[in-house]
């Protein structure tokens, strides 16, 4: 039904173990290009673990073992041995649950990624890139007069948008968001959600969220996880109106989780 080329990332047979404990059990999930996919489910269901597999952030954890196939753009196996992890993360950016700006200036925060990857060749090019990234993250107007101020002085919502600006500064194809609004108030949350809606024109976004209303507002596709299993996936409108599985229905109607 959908053309294969329209998937940014396809996963299959994914198993994740922490030591002897199974965290993800045989999950297969595909992420359509330039769309927002949300991963929902109760705490401890493995949705964050799964998300962190997609840019290999789990590699840092010694006891964590990831198996399965992860194919990006139908060609690149992101767990291939000869693929430098740094190049992968240049393509797949990430925004974390708690805003984590570096204790540097606002400018330096956004310039960090481009500097490491040598994206720009001149200072003015870098300046433009920083400005553009801040613009896209909807932060530029608020901080344009104080780019040299320390980023940790920004409000929580501004910090999170700065982290988004930082993530898009190296022009990734996919942005992973791990409960990006859970530490924010409703107004800051609304701004981030607007931002997600704008960003999906250029990026594929995968978002883990605890808020079902958020999932229904921002995403076109939703996957429901429970106890490491992928229970159901499909169009967001379908999942939230007439899900196939009873478990899904129980969860979205608030009967458990």
């Amino acid at each position, binding site marked *: 039904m959908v053309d294969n080329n329209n998937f940014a990332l396809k996963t299959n047979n994914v198993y994740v173990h922490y030591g002897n404990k199974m965290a993800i059990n045989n999950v297969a999930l595909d992420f359509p290009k330039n769309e927002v996919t949300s991963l929902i489910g109760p705490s401890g269901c493995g949705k964050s673990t799964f998300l962190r597999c997609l840019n290999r952030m789990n590699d840092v954890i010694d006891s964590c073992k990831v198996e399965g196939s992860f194919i990006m753009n139908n060609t690149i196996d992101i767990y291939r041995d000869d693929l430098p992890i740094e190049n992968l993360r240049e393509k797949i*950016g*990430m925004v974390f649950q708690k805003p984590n700006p570096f204790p540097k200036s606002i400018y330096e925060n956004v310039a*960090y990624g481009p500097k490491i990857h040598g994206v720009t060749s001149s200072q003015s090019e870098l300046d433009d890139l920083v400005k553009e990234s801040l613009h896209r993250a909807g932060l530029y107007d608020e901080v344009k007069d104080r780019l040299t101020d320390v980023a940790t002085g920004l409000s929580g919502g501004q910090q999170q948008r700065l982290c988004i600006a930082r993530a898009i500064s190296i022009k990734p194809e996919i942005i992973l968001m791990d409960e990006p609004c859970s530490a924010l108030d409703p107004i800051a949350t609304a701004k981030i959600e607007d931002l997600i809606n704008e960003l999906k024109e250029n990026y594929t976004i995968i978002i883990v969220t605890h808020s079902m209303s958020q999932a229904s507002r921002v995403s076109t596709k939703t996957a429901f996880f429970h106890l490491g299993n992928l229970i159901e996936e499909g169009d967001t409108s379908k999942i939230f109106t007439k899900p196939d599985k009873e478990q899904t229905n129980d969860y979205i109607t608030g009967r458990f989780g």
Partner: protein
Amino acid sequence: MVYFALLLLFIVSYSFYYFGKNRALKIKFTGDQKLASLPDYYGYFLVLVVFLPSLIIWFILLLYKSNFQELYVMSPTLFPDIAQWSDAKFGLIMNKISNLALIVNIPEADLLKGQTSLLNMSSESELIAAKNLASFDSIYGWSIVIVFILLPVILGLSISRLINQKLNVQPIVEKIIINIIRFSSIVAILVTFGIFFSLIFEAIKFFQYVNFADFFFNTAWNPNRAWVISSGETVDPEILKDAFGWVPLLTGTLLVGSVAMFVAIPLGLASAIYLAEYASSKVRDIAKPIIEILAGIPTVVYGFFAALTLAPILKNFGDSIGIDISAESALAAGLAMGVMIIPFVSSLSDDVIRSVPNSLRDGSYALGATKSETIKKVVLPAALPGIMGSFLLAVSRAIGETMIVVMAASLRANLTFNPLEPATTITTQIVTALIGDVEFENPKTLVAFALGLSLFVMTLILNIIAITIVRKYREKYE
């Protein structure tokens, strides 16, 4: 005797805890009113009112024991002209009476010859005073028994009668406890000031002999010139002009300290980075305590390691490549000192680096940075203020270090910045000044206090800077 009484006081006080608590619990309540405080507090209340007065009176007795003695013994009825005595005479007679008191109650037959003649040389009133003094100790002993046992029991029993349902002792108890805690911290602060002022007073005596400018700006250090001065004599400052110039000591201290930091900073920082970022937790658990042992080795051991092992090796090495390295070089002392302060740098920096939140590391990795880029560009900059703080603490440790330089560095003041030459340090000269056989009031001895004061101020400033930096850093993530 006193310790036995003190033990009794503890037991008495402790039993009053249960006494007070029980008394409170046995109160028959009228109406629906309950006890004003929790039952425990009536116990604490009695303990405090029993324990504290005894303790305070005991301290006063201890502090003024000799005054009470004199008051008791040297009465004007025995010595009518006592008001006219000079302090020296008073002291002499008191001394004589103390000696007499030791023998006055011994039967004459058991006395030695000298003791008999001392008795015969003494006046009637002196003998009476001596007998009084001999009896003073037993009076003093009994007064302690009263203070430690009778007073608390009487106080405890009478105050416990006040306990009733409406007596709210909780605020009283808390107030007393807060004041005890406050007193403890004041004591610590007072001790610091006491040390500072004792240094200042002795240093002022020193500066009566030597000009301020001659001390701080002169480059000649020849303290032996002060041999000629006898106590109390006023001397022409010109004689001491070139005797106490501290500049070569300062440069020596800075020289040895720099060598030490040259060793400690790279090694300490590198091991901190390894421990915090690369070592597995197993390696870290073993390696960190071992590195910290370096700080626990007695400095005297470093001293003879530097003097007897390191210095000859350096000298031989220098000879083999044609460089003249002194046997008492600043290099040897500095190297040993540097090894000693490695843990100050590594341990503190390790803690600081580890306290950088992992979310920052994740943020950097997620942008495709490698581990070394993350450490260099995110972790270390974030930890930098704390790392600087650890450097400064290590520096102040280095310039205050004594034993290593006493053993390994030279005694000769030498104004140089060449670590291969001998150099002396402030601390070495303080030791030398105080262990000499010159009388105390001589500037050669008193200079120790001027040097100590300068050193104290230097390390104080360094510590204040270090603490300010570390504190500023702590606030950053909150």
